[in-house]
């Protein structure tokens, strides 16, 4: 192969597909951010401005104060953090039980966890709505925290089981000899060693909860209880959409998810990929 042929080959099997991948992936982000910082007049102007000529924060002010994204943001944050908190505690306990004890019904319990992965959330919106209605928890953040914790728990427990199984038993035995009880062992010995795994699990749980739409839509009917996805959804469905504020609201919702993702993406290939590989 001549140098020219090799270069052409490299162009068509590498540079061109790479450029298309990067542009296809990043352009929607660029366009949303671009729209969010444009004055309303420039958004509807023709021809479109690919590089904005003027810059404004007005859209963010409208979204944050006028539309109520400050409230949605707080609601989303509260629900996400509470869910992550409970998922981490319960999943660690389950993971510990599975990796350190032999007990009757362990096999059945594992099967139960696996089965949940095939129960689609979309199919439970009707009964969950009726259950939370009878508990008086519609439009109460508790209903979403409970639902999300339940749906995130099985997968994260299995993940945690894997992490804890990698921690040498000797560490705990030494602590037990020193007079620690089981719970102290878990919190003082296992947790610090597990930290990287816990952080990754927590971040992925956060992203899932932050993004969840259907349950939140079904279980919330008061505007002051909306999460970000619900707020965005309603705003999109309005007759006279304020595109600038909609884009600004999107950026507000994007930032935490992207930050979390950027922080934990190193673990993604091993974590998610490893989980799928089994």
């Amino acid at each position: 192969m001549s140098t020219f042929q090799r270069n052409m080959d490299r162009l068509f099997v590498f540079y061109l597909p790479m450029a298309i991948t990067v542009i296809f992936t990043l352009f929607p982000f660029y366009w949303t951010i671009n729209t969010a910082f444009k004055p309303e007049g420039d958004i509807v102007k023709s021809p479109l401005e690919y590089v904005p000529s003027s810059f404004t924060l007005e859209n963010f002010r409208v979204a944050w104060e006028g539309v109520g994204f400050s409230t949605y943001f707080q609601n989303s944050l509260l629900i996400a953090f509470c869910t992550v908190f409970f998922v981490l505690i319960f999943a660690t306990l389950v993971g510990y039980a599975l990796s350190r004890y032999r007990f009757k019904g362990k096999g059945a319990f594992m099967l139960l966890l696996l089965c949940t992965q095939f129960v689609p959330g979309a199919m439970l919106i009707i009964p969950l709505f009726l259950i939370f209605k009878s508990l008086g928890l519609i439009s109460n953040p508790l209903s979403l925290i409970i639902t999300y914790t339940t749906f995130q728990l099985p997968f994260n427990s299995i993940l945690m089981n894997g992490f804890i199984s990698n921690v040498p038993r000797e560490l705990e035995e030494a602590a037990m000899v020193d007079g620690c009880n089981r719970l102290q062992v878990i919190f003082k010995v296992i947790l610090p060693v597990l930290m990287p795994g816990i952080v990754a699990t927590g971040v992925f749980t956060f992203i899932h909860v932050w993004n969840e739409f259907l349950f939140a839509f079904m279980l919330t009917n008061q505007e002051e209880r909306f999460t970000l996805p619900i707020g965005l959804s309603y705003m999109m469905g309005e007759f006279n959409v304020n595109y600038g504020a909609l884009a600004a609201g999107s950026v507000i919702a994007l930032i935490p998810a992207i930050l979390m993702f950027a922080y934990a993406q190193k673990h993604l290939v091993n974590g998610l990929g490893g989980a799928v590989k089994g």
Partner: protein
Amino acid sequence: MQSRLQAQEEAQIRVQEKKQGSTFQLEKWMPYLFISPAIVLIVGFLFYPLGNVFYYSLQNYDASQPYYNGFAGLDNFVRIFTEDPQFFASLGISLKWVVSQVSLQLVIGMGVALLLNQSFRFRAFIRAAAFTPWAISGVLTSVMWSLMYNEHIGVINDILKKLGIIDSNQAWLANLDTVFASVVIAELWRGIPFFAITLLAGLQSIPEELYEASKVDGASRWRIFFHITLPHLKNTIILTTLLRTVWEFNNIDLIFNLTGGGPAHETTTLTMYIAEQAIHSNNFGYGSALTVVSFGLLLVFAIAYLRISRFQKEEG
């Protein structure tokens, strides 16, 4: 005196035994204590509602017509299969949706994984960038793409006009001919990274020596791909496509927000139809019956898929 000492000693031993006994008991119950929160939640808020779906499917349960509520036997199911053309239409759209999503995501995701598995400058950064849509919600994806698809201010019309592909602005999401493909592309944007991530993990576990040996033999790029790479990824592919099929079948965020199932039910998948029954019509009985049917279809599909593809866990 002596006997008193003896008695004291004996008592002490008994106390110790009792103590040991109780810690032993506690240890025995420990694992159950640890898994109890998970069991309570999973049974209470996952399996109990699941059971409810089956129960409601046998009821007339319409929140807007409560006077008809009561046991209905198999009426709902009879209605699904004999009187509801929308059910079959939605099932067809679900099929179209799942097949196009899973096959395109797999093929393109494989291409992206192969690209990202090579060594090049800024690899870590480009990998992270290429995976980012994975972390974006269906609602956000809908907002971002609806801005771009917009008939009046959309950038896609602008680009296609500049390239000379279209003459005038199109309403991509309102036009019967373009709506399905438009929604598919938006979902691909969010769905490809999942395959890219999982397949990249699979690619990284293929021993380098295998490639080196075949390069020495002078095998072509395609030969290497079909004889080494693909067989190694077989189990990953079977499992990811199955998971994705279930996921895309149930996926609703994007369609719900981008088109609401329209125009003219052109994008109403079965799951979208169920949500419509639950959210807009408040027909919980009929919605539950539809849910039971689609759950059954998924279950049959999953079992058949694993059988036919001869998935072997131990090999992976």
